[in-house]
Each structure stands twice: as structure tokens, then as C-alpha cells.
């Protein structure tokens, strides 16, 4: 068994090993109720990572997701009274629009995606600060429950949040594996030049990938906002690093073309286990980002497809 052959199985093996380690050190980790809470808590992050997967799958990255989610928390809080449940539509349109702009800048103006999305992230942050007047805003509890109360609560012991996550995963999986768009994504991620020479509209595929990333980030922001019953230009801070880590430890490399949304589900669970292990080990919150930074580097080093990097002998 060579490393290359184990590599696709690496993420779930890592997950199982981590769960066993954490579970043995702290048997209460396996308590069903506690586990369910842990999993539900990670849902907004998961949704964001799900969207990010599309951007990374084509060999790009979307650094605007966190700020976009911040903006959406503000939008949702400010406009909830006026539009009710329709703020969800506004949020999604905003996410889509920002994604399309990032994609347009990347494909038509040839600005690398890490720069274009970083810039769009600051645009979103600025808009969030402007809209919120730099204050933390709160939702009216009654209005919130009327419009979005269905997002929380349980049916037959399953938290609705978790159900939303599963539905979105299925949608994303379907998009990725069963549609012409998903196939085009794979072609662009694995061999962009061949995709062009096959007559695919590569620019449109890429723009759509960023748009999807934006939409998922907006949904994540909305969920987060409703969950915390408020909006703030800094509410979703800390998500970006974790979302990237989730995608990469899941096995979708920065070079794109392999992995996908199911990998991201595994990656998110890995992030969740590491995070709960750190809580158990009483690692200070300020140090957690450091750990994830190191995990990120390790994940990139392990997953990146070196044969795709130019100038390197295979």
C-alpha cells in the first residue's frame, strides 16, 4: 500500500482515529445528547465550508465568506422586521451577487481569487459596519420565532439545524456529482486547458462556483444570526480559518479537481472533534486558532497534488 493509494481514505481514517483518541481520554464524549449538541453547533461552519468547497474544487479559494456571513447577520437583523422570512431571499441574493463579482473579477480581470475574494470580503465587512452603525444589533424574539423559529427545535430527537445541514449537503452533492455543472467543475479543477479545448464555458463555471460559495456563506450567516438572535459586523469572525481547514483536511486539495462536498462533511467533523478535544484539554480559546493554523498547514502539505505544481519534477 503506497501513500498515494491510502491518500483518498486519509480523511475518514483521521476522523475515526481522532474520535477514538478523544473518546478514550474522555468517555463522556460519546454521550448521545452531548454529541448531538456538538454536531448542531458546527452546522453554520459546515454550511460555509460546503460553499467554500466549490471554490477550492476549481483550484481557487474564497476568502470573503466570513465577512459575507458577517454582512448577512447584519442584513438579517436590520431587515427582519420589514421583510420577515423574505430576508432569507435578500441574504441569498447578496451572497450570490458578491460571489458573482468575485468570480467576474477573477475570470475576466485575471485577478487571482485569493486577492479578489479578499477584497470583496473587505467590501462586505465595510457594508456590514455601515449598515449596523458598528453596533451589535438584536432581533426581536417574537419576530424571529415567527419567521425562523422552524430552524431550531427538534423533530423525533433530530435537531432541525442538523436536518438543514443534511439537506444542503445532499443538494451540494447532487450538484457536484450528478449535474453537467458539477462535471464541468471537475473538468476545470482537473484540467482547465482541456476543458477550454472541449468548448466548455470555463469562465461561467468559475463564476458560478464563487456564486455558490457566496450563497452558502449567506445561508451560514443567516443561520448564525438567527441562532444568536442578532447581527454584528464581527459575529462570524473566526469562521474563515476553520472553513478552509474543514475543506482541506477533508481531502479537497488547494489544487482542486479531487475531493468534494462529502469530504468537507468529514473535514468539518474532524474540526469539531479537534475543537472539543481542545476544550477538554482546557486549551485557551486564544490558542485554538494557533492549533488550527498548524493543522491547516499540515493539511495542505499532505493533500496538495504536487504533480500539478508547475516546475516540479513528478
Amino acid at each position, binding site marked *: 500500500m503506497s501513500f498515494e493509494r491510502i491518500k483518498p481514505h486519509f480523511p475518514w481514517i483521521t476522523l475515526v482515529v481522532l474520535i477514538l483518541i478523544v473518546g478514550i481520554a474522555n468517555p463522556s464524549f460519546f454521550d448521545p445528547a452531548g454529541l448531538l449538541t456538538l454536531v448542531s453547533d458546527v452546522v453554520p461552519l459546515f454550511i460555509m465550508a460546503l460553499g467554500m468547497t466549490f471554490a477550492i474544487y476549481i483550484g481557487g479559494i474564497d476568502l470573503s465568506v466570513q465577512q459575507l456571513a458577517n454582512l448577512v447577520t447584519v442584513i438579517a437583523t436590520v431587515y427582519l422586521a420589514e421583510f420577515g422570512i423574505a430576508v432569507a431571499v435578500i441574504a441569498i441574493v447578496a451572497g450570490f451577487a458578491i460571489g458573482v463579482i468575485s468570480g467576474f473579477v477573477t475570470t475576466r480581470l485575471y485577478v487571482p481569487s485569493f486577492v479578489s475574494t479578499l477584497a470583496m470580503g473587505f467590501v462586505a465587512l465595510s457594508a456590514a459596519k455601515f449598515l449596523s452603525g458598528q453596533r451589535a444589533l438584536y432581533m426581536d424574539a417574537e419576530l424571529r420565532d415567527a419567521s425562523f423559529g422552524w430552524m431550531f427545535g427538534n423533530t423525533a430527537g433530530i435537531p432541525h439545524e442538523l436536518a438543514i445541514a443534511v439537506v444542503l449537503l445532499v443538494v451540494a452533492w447532487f450538484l457536484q456529482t450528478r449535474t453537467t455543472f458539477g462535471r464541468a467543475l471537475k*473538468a476545470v479543477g482537473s484540467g482547465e486547458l482541456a476543458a477550454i479545448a472541449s*468548448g*466548455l464555458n470555463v469562465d461561467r463555471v468559475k463564476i458560478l462556483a464563487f456564486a455558490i460559495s457566496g450563497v452558502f456563506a449567506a445561508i451560514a450567516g443567516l443561520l448564525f444570526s438567527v441562532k444568536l438572535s442578532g447581527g454584528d459586523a464581527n459575529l462570524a469572525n473566526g469562521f474563515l480559518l476553520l472553513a478552509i481547514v474543514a475543506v482541506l483536511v477533508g481531502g479537497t486539495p488547494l489544487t482542486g479537481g*479531487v475531493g468534494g462536498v462529502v469530504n468537507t462533511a468529514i473535514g468539518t467533523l474532524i474540526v469539531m472533534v479537534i475543537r472539543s478535544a481542545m476544550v477538554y484539554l482546557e486549551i485557551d480559546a486564544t490558542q485554538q486558532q494557533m492549533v488550527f493554523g498548524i493543522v491547516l498547514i499540515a493539511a495542505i502539505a499532505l493533500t496538495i497534488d504536487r504533480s500539478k505544481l508547475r516546475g516540479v519534477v513528478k
Partner: protein
Amino acid sequence: MYELRQVDKHFPGVHALKAVDFKVNRHEIVGLVGENGAGKSTLMKVIYGAYQPDGGDVLIDGTVVRFQNPRMAMDHGIGMVFQEQSLILNLTVMENIFLGYEQQFVKLGVIDWKAMSEAARRQLAKVKLDIDPAMTTSDLSFAQRQLVELAKVLTLEERIDGDLVILLDEPTSVLAQEEVELLFSLVRDLTKRASFIFVSHRMEEVLELSDRIYVMKDGAVVDVVAHDGADKDAIQHKMVGRDVDKEYYREQKQKPYDEDKVLVRFDGVSSGNRYTDISFALHPGEVLCLVGTEGSGREAILRTIFGLETPTKGQVTIKGETISRFTAQNGVKLGVGYTPRERKIEGIVAGMNVYENMTLSQMGNYASAGVLKVNEEKSLARTWIERLGIKTPDVYKDCGGLSGGNQQKVVLAKWRSAGADIMLLDHPTRGLDIGAKEDVYEMIREMCAAGVGVVLVADTLEEAIGLSHTIIVLKDGAFQKRFDGKPGSKPSLYDLVHHMI
């Protein structure tokens, strides 16, 4: 002195080398021939240390050695002259020659350029190349670069005490006749110091240069012939496993084309400074060959027809429709298929399997409301695998893992199955072996019989002459001459070269 004994190498799903015995004696030039996928490149990689064999032994002067990487092999005197030239173009010649071995010129932490330059000059003298070592490599011709590659490997002479084994992988593919002869006389000269392993698709060259020839087929050595006993036809027979048709380019199958219909028409088309004022018409059943040197505008014309390049002047008409927006999507819609030269990068998507590659240009036909009908894709792929004799274990095989000839068949199947009737072929047989080339020629004739118009940029002039109905000679982007190539009255090589340069 260098020897492989019963060497085995497996890859997932492939037994790439089967108990290979291979031996190189001192001062010897050993030829290595075989079709694509016969295991030549794997064998070479084992020899120069890029792969480690799963079974068998590597011996130098009777002692078993094991190389973990190419550098270790180099330390034992085994050097590789790469086919895809491995020089770094923006470095100077001397920097390239001593890349990774600069330490010998370092004094007090800085490189003594003068010493390096002198040492480089000595290396270049070995290959009889009189150039300034401080030249930037990109300013050299292809032939000069090939010699610099050789000079770089020959630095082993000073570094290693023992014997040298130098692998030459397709060293002649970018060289002109005189340059090939120069290289050969050089190699013969160098046998005083080193042994050579010579790999080439050009059988005549292998026969001319080698003392012994190893013939490989399906991962095994099927024959070893001595220079004196070598016969081209016999070797080709062993490589392919059947007789090579004398009617190589299938001229007997060349039928007159339909002059009444026009598929593609160029009227005084120009594109920047790539080509100017080009006019021609492509008819159903015609093979129209664009002939010219590198940079004569051949590829740019193909890309214009496909829609990847927008002309600056003139009128392009495809099937009666005047093209105003040049996009590849539009080209595909009009039935244009494009087989690019860089097969591994532009032709197939490595990482995607056979059916995914075949439907890539026509996903709309295999989907409703954007949802793919994977079963239909697979049955399409199975049909074409059988029809074109594509060698793949199944439709799930990653196309990146297929041999060159089979990759090319996948690309052709992609366009043919989508009903493309204007085929643009850019070096469709580049790097393919005889058997795979013949398959491509056969397919071109079949396409013509089915009313497809083909615009071809051929790999060699012989191929251009043999395959085409019409030849257009280009020079520096300008039209030079048009030749008719009916079987029996084809232009000669000289006719074409005369107008090319």
C-alpha cells in the same frame, strides 16, 4: 557492466515490467524500441532511479545497488538526457549545466562565475558546441538546447570515477537531419567514455546508431537483436505483433472530396501578426493540411476555426454561417472538433475517467435539465471503446493513466460521437508509435468517408503529403502555395520545403 535482472514493476491495474533482463556493456550503444505503453518509459525510470522496482535486481559491475532517487543514480554514473527538455529557460547555459552542483565553484559563500564559465566551456566543448556559457538558455535553438542537455549530463565524467551510462530519450525528435547526424557522431565519439541507451520512435535512427537493440512489447523484452542482424520490418513486426502495412498513409483509401459543398471558408482572414490574408475552403471528405515551420501560423488558424482566437480582419464562414462571435462554445455548436497538440494537457482531462472525457464537449446531449444521465454516458463510452479498439480495463479508468495512443482515441471519440464534421487535428500522431499512428490514419480516412472535413497540422511532412487532399504552405503567417494531392500525383518533400523556407 550495468545490468537489470528479472526486474518487475507493478502499478495499480498494470504489470508495467515483466521480469525484464537488460544489460549495457562498456562502450556500447543500446537501442530500446517498443510501442507506446510497451514499458519503455517505466524501464528508463527504473534505470535512472525515478522508480524503484518491485522485484529483481539492479547491478553495477556485478554488485546489487538500489537507487532511492535520480540523484543517487547519478552518483553511480547514470545520467538521463530528457526528451521534454529539462533546462530552465531563463537561466544561463552554465547555470543550467551545473544546476544543483554549484558548490564546487563557491568561494567564501559566493559563486565564482568565471570558474563556472570556464568549466561550462569545457563541457560544451565535449559536445562541440561553441557558444557563450553566459547566454540565456531561451536564446538557443532547440538543437543547441538538446546538446546543452547532453553536456549537462556529461558533467558526470568529472564527478564519477566509474563507468557512465547515459540515457537518451527521444533526443532527435526536435532535430533536423544534419543536427541528428551531428548528435550521432558525437555519441559514437563519446562511447570511449560512456555507454548509451538510446530510445526513439524513429526506427531508422535506432538501427543506425545502436550496437544492440532491445525490443519491448507489453512490459516484456521480446527480442534482443544485434546491429548486424537487425531488420526494420522484423523489429516492427515484433513490436506491433503484426505486419506493418506498406500502405502506411492509407492512400488507397483516399477518395475525392465533395467539391460542391463548403464546410469552412476563410476570406482574406488575418489575426494580429500571427497570420495575414488567408483564404481557403474546406469541403466534406477533404483533408486539408497546413504546412509550415513552427510559428508559421498553422495553429493560430486552427484555433480561429474552433473559436479560441478572434481574427482581426476578414470573414470566416462555417457551414454558410458568417461567424461574428468567436467562442469555443460556438465552434462546438457548429460541429467543430479540436484535437490539440498537447494531448495530456489540452486533449484529455487527467483525473477524469473515460466516459467523463468522452462526453465533456457534449454534456447537453447526455443530460436533461442539467442532470446527467450517467448510464447513457457509459454505454456511449463502451460503444466507442469497442469501435476504436481503445485499450482500457473499463469505462472508469482515469484517462491520465492510458497510453498516448489510447488517450488520442478518447479525444477523437469525444468529437466523433458528438457528430463533429469539421475536425481540427493538431499533430494528432505526435509521440505515438507506429501501431497507434496507423490507427489514427485509419480513423482520418474513415471520417472523410463519412463526410467529415479535416484540417490537419501534421507531425512530419511525409505525413502531410501522405494524408492530404490539399496542402497549403505557410511562411511567417502568409500564404505561399497550394498543392493538390491526388493519390499518384502528390507533391514531393522538396516542393514543400522549397516554399516553407
